[in-house]
């Protein structure tokens, strides 16, 4: 049975999610990937105000393909998450509660997730056309000069993800791989 989750993603909601849960997200999520993370961390280091408040928010690691005229967004599947690992603990400390991507996270991210009670979801990588159907609006909030890597606000409806690493540090990639190893 899929769990329906509405944003904002509060601490209580995160605590109820466990590794392996299938979740449908409805509400607002923000897109950010490599260059956007770099920029945001520079802003933090310079003491500037960030374009969005991290508190109880979800970041989706994605660089969508361009929309055709009349389309909301192009294809929009997840990108590989580990490239964001160096930047992630700083954002978690600012209140970021959820991340959507694909692939493993390093130990410092997992420790920070446990400390800050946050969750890491995976969306199906490469299922980009399918995922784009669940995105109902897309607005550029900041870093427009980064093109596909800009910070975007997405309104999503029943956006399908799976909990890979929960706030207790349980990791679906590790537990499932062991089950099917021959």
């Amino acid at each position, binding site marked *: 049975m899929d769990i329906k989750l509405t944003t904002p993603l509060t601490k209580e909601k995160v605590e109820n999610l466990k590794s392996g849960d299938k979740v449908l997200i409805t509400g607002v999520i923000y897109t950010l990937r490599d260059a956007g993370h770099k920029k945001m961390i520079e802003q933090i280091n310079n003491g500037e105000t960030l374009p969005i408040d991290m508190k109880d928010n979800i970041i989706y690691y994605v660089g969508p393909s361009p929309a055709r005229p009349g389309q909301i967004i192009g294809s929009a599947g997840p*990108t590989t998450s580990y490239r964001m690992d160096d930047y992630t603990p700083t954002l978690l400390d600012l209140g970021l509660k959820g991340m959507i991507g694909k*692939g*493993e996270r390093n130990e410092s991210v997992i420790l920070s997730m446990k400390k800050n009670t946050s969750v890491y979801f995976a969306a*199906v990588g490469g299922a980009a056309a399918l995922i784009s159907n669940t995105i109902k609006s897309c607005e550029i909030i900041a870093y427009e000069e980064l093109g596909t890597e800009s910070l975007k606000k997405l309104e999503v409806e029943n956006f399908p993800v799976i909990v890979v690493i929960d706030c207790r540090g349980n990791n679906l990639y590790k537990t499932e791989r062991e089950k099917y190893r021959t």
Partner: protein
Amino acid sequence: MRKIDIHEIIDVVKELCIDANYNIGGDIFCAFEEYSKKENSVIGKEVLEQLIDNSKIAKKKQMPICQDTGMAVVFLEIGQEVFIEGGDLNEAINEGVRRGYEEGYLRKSVVRDPFYRENTNDNTPAIIHYDIVKGNLIKITVAPKGFGSENMSRIYMLKPSDGIEGAKSAIIETIEASGANACPPMVVGVGIGGTFEKAAILAKKALLRPVGETSMIEYVKEMEEELLKKANGLGIGPQGLGGNTTVLGINVEVFPTHIAGLPVAINISCHVTRHSSKVI
């Protein structure tokens, strides 16, 4: 001497960029269907079914299968009796890529410098590989390569004494380390022999061979079959969420090499391994 106008090359490259990104290869689609029947994990099976649906949606709506529409890798086999007229060939290929990525609403994912990362905004330059062959035809192949999987690729400069077993260990080690990052089920291209760069190019070319088509060399074929079985026993599964479908195909190409060397290049590719070709 057969003359080919440069504008024809621009048009073909443009069409191939779009076709490769919208329409999944028949070999990959068949592999999805075949493996979804054999997958033991419930989540794994669901992921494979989603990939089938996704490729159908992309084809029907004519949109990219994956948002990472790749860096355009272009292979040209140019017949030595062909005369190309009307302009610069490198520039024509890049113009084809530029038009394909713009007109096809494909993502522009190329930065001008590896450190000063400004997007070129037209997905150029392409990575171009030329081969001069017999005849009076040109075969053009566009293979857009996403970097989730490209980043997981490796090259090993093994010792001759490492032998086939050493090469197999290197390949399995690379697949295992790729885990969920490379968007499994993967396709794995392997180039063995030659020099450092020859092995890497062979590995990339190995990805052009359809999944399910084995090597013509008996021992290589056996190696491919053994590796496929081993890789699918790693437990990684579709999207790394567990299962017995980790790799759809492993294609190995071999080439003569130096008495002192055994280069093994492993090019990891995701489940949308794309390539489209046309002969003109």
